[in-house]
């Protein structure tokens, strides 16, 4: 009995066909191009327009960049070189960058002391390493990071070593006063006494002590005045100090704004909203003309220091809002969990709330950092010689009158490198700290 299907019909395939390659038009480069570049008439037009734009821009830029004007001493010489080479007067004039790049980097800092800012910024990298790449460097390095804030201004401004040491001593005195008093009485009294002691030391005593020590043991390096600072060195100095100081200040302000203590809360809200409501340039005006009015008669201090104070205050208000966002995004259960463990306010903040809130707000914090660094260019308006201020001076020079693209292109490229790498770092940090949840 063979009445199975196979016997009644002429042919039946009893094995599977071998798997076939997909049609060549849907795989590989062709398939990719069909899917991503030519998926419809509109996309095809867009693709061709984009190719035209890219081609045009690349042609213009390349033919402009490769120009043999590296050794020219003025814009006129550049034009002579270019027209002698047979080209039109198009083409970059790189002579201005060759002549002025060192000035754009260091301003008018004494040339024989360039090693000091260079060393300071290399050490900055070392000091930041334990903070930025905590899992890749030895943890003892954090002690160097703690000393670095006092080393940094000394290397840049120079002068006697006793100045930064006495600033450091203020913190040490405050710490010991706190330690001694908080064991005997309450923490609150300890904190207040520590702040008062440190302020007393900085404002009253340290001046005499520094003078005395300096006359006994004059250890120091050559002092450099603030008006010699300039270029990217100035931008980075302002940026780094403002970033470093604004983070803790921003945390305090954010906690104040979230606090149950009504008066503290309103003081913080008022400060944050005021600073965020006015442009930075008005605060810089305050730094340049008003800040001396607010202080006791006869007080004058350095313009860079005044700018630093105002930029730090400005950045800290923005930072506070970013961190407040992180605090608000944290589930209520985390606060209640910390309370139910019996942690007090500061313990809960330190061990439970802040690590999570800061992690949530990393993208915002880094974009605030980038904003602060970009905003350092505003100091050129009040007459400091940051790269933009210097560019005005260079363009006013009769040799380089009329230079635009080379100069601004160079400055823009430098800023782009700094800001773009910061934003990439924040993406790396986000990936590294993502511990689950989603």
């Amino acid at each position, binding site marked *: 009995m063979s009445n199975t299907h196979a016997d009644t019909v002429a042919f039946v395939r009893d094995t599977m066909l071998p798997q076939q390659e997909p049609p060549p038009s849907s795989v590989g480069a062709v398939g990719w191009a069909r899917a991503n570049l030519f998926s419809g008439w509109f996309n095809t037009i867009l693709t061709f327009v984009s190719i035209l734009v890219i081609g045009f821009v690349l042609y213009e830029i390349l033919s402009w960049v490769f120009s043999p004007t590296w050794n020219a001493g003025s814009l006129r010489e550049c034009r002579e070189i270019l027209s002698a080479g047979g080209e039109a007067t198009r083409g970059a004039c790189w002579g201005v960058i060759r002549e002025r790049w060192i000035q754009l980097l260091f301003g008018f800092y004494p040339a024989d002391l360039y090693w000091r800012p260079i060393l300071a910024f290399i050490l900055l990298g070392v000091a930041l390493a334990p903070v930025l790449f905590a899992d890749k460097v030895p943890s003892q390095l954090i002690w160097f990071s703690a000393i670095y804030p006092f080393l940094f201004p000394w290397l840049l401004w120079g002068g006697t070593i006793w100045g930064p040491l006495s600033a450091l001593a203020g913190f040490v005195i405050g710490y010991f006063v706190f330690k001694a008093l908080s064991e005997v009485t309450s923490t609150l009294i300890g904190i207040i006494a520590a702040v008062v002691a440190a302020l007393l030391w900085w404002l009253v005593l340290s001046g005499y002590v520094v003078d005395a020590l300096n006359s006994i043991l004059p250890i120091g390096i050559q002092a450099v005045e603030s008006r010699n600072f300039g270029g990217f060195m100035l931008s980075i100095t302002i940026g780094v100090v403002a970033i470093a100081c604004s983070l803790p200040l921003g945390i305090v302000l954010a906690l104040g704004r979230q606090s149950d203590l009504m008066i503290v809360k309103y003081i913080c809200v008022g400060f944050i909203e005021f600073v965020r409501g006015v442009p930075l340039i008005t605060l810089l005006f305050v730094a340049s003309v008003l800040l001396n009015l607010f202080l006791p008669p006869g007080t004058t201090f350095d313009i860079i220091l005044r700018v630093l104070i105002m930029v730090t205050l400005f950045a800290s208000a923005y930072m506070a809002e970013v961190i407040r966002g992180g605090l608000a995004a944290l589930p209520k259960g985390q606060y209640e969990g910390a309370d139910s463990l019996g942690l007090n306010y500061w313990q809960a903040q330190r061990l439970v709330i802040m690590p999570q809130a800061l992690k949530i707000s990393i993208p915002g914090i880094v974009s605030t950092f980038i904003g602060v660094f970009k905003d350092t260019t505003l100091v050129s308006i009040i007459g400091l010689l940051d790269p933009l201020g210097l560019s005005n001076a260079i363009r006013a020079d009769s040799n380089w009158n*009329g230079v635009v693209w080379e100069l601004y292109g160079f400055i823009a490229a430098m800023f782009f490198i700094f800001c773009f790498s910061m934003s990439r770092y924040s993406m790396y940090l986000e990936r590294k700290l993502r511990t689950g949840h989603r």
Partner: protein
Amino acid sequence: MTTITEAPRAQFRLSMLLYDTRYRSGTIQIIALFGFVLMAGWLISNTMNNLAALGKPIDFGFFAEPASYDINQRLLDYNSRDTHLRAAFIGLLNTLVVAVLGCITATVLGVLIGVLRLSKNWLVARLMTIYVELFRNVPVLLWIVFTMAILIESLPQPRDFIGDAPTAFMGLFNSIAATNQGTWLPEVLFSRSLGNLHLFGEARLRFDVSLDLVAILVALGIGIFGARIVSRRAERIQSETGVRPKTGIINFLIIALPVLVVLVALGFYLDGPHLTTRKLKPIEGGTLIRNSLIALWLALSLYTAAFIAEIVRAGIMAISHGQTEAAAALGIRPGRIMRLVILPQALRVIIPPLISNYLNLTKNSSLAIAVGYMDITGTLGGITLNQTGRELECILLLMLVYLSISLSISAVMNWYNESVKLRER
């Protein structure tokens, strides 16, 4: 047998101010307030002492004095004999002009770029990414001075337009002349003008209102009102019968016709810039838009557009794909899916950061001082400050102006957030 009905009441001791959580918050607040008042008092007394020593106590009288400087780009009538107050007011208007112009262009550009960044076209998406990264990572001040420098260096001088062999020509049917001083545009004129209405008379605070402009605005308002009535009727018919009558052309006519009638009645015509033969003033007539305004406007728009593009992209990506699929399953076309389903939800995510970017743009417009555009910072915080030497008054007022702009924009934002908030039970 005794039952404890209430906790034993401890006698109040002074140390409880520190150790008892019931009182400690009060103690901390009083200390904070005390410190704050002490600090504020110290600053104010220092300021008073310093001002007294300088011999210039706080006094706003200088506002009534003649400003004696010129403002070359302005909306209202102004001359150098006008007061500092009027100069500041002209500056404030200039700030608002560049802020409004910038916000509009930045929004249009930003939405376009944000949508294109999500395009399926790989090349276009990459190009837009490059644009966004390029503009976000370079300071806005650099873009402003850069644009200004490009305009000054690359555009022809006004005298290149005249002479026997002119090297530069006007564009668009001889109506636009782009020079390194600015761009001349045709001027709007009315042959049967209604004249101006002088509010506050000819006083120092004079404020002229062009009646022509008022008439046009009234006509436009009537048109929009009529169009809304037509739309509402169309909606009613749609909800009753399911068929929406066509309203597009009718609405357009209802809005356009009254304006057109008013324009014809006023004798509207454009008078373009004319070339002369004089070397000193080669171009006359028309409206001159200075390069400082153009540079500031362009740079602020391009810079803010990069941020807005990111916001738009994030807003569209925040809407789950299920919404699109559900709408498609209902048989709605792609264009209407975007308009009726995605955008209304995305806007809830987009609008708050968008408004805060408008705020940033307005604050960044204070950088006008770097290119010499006379906004409120350039007048009140710039020349007025330098001429009168009244730093404290000028800067305080300047901050107050910006603060009130910021706070009003925040108020609008809060109102919007409240009105689009998801109503949850």
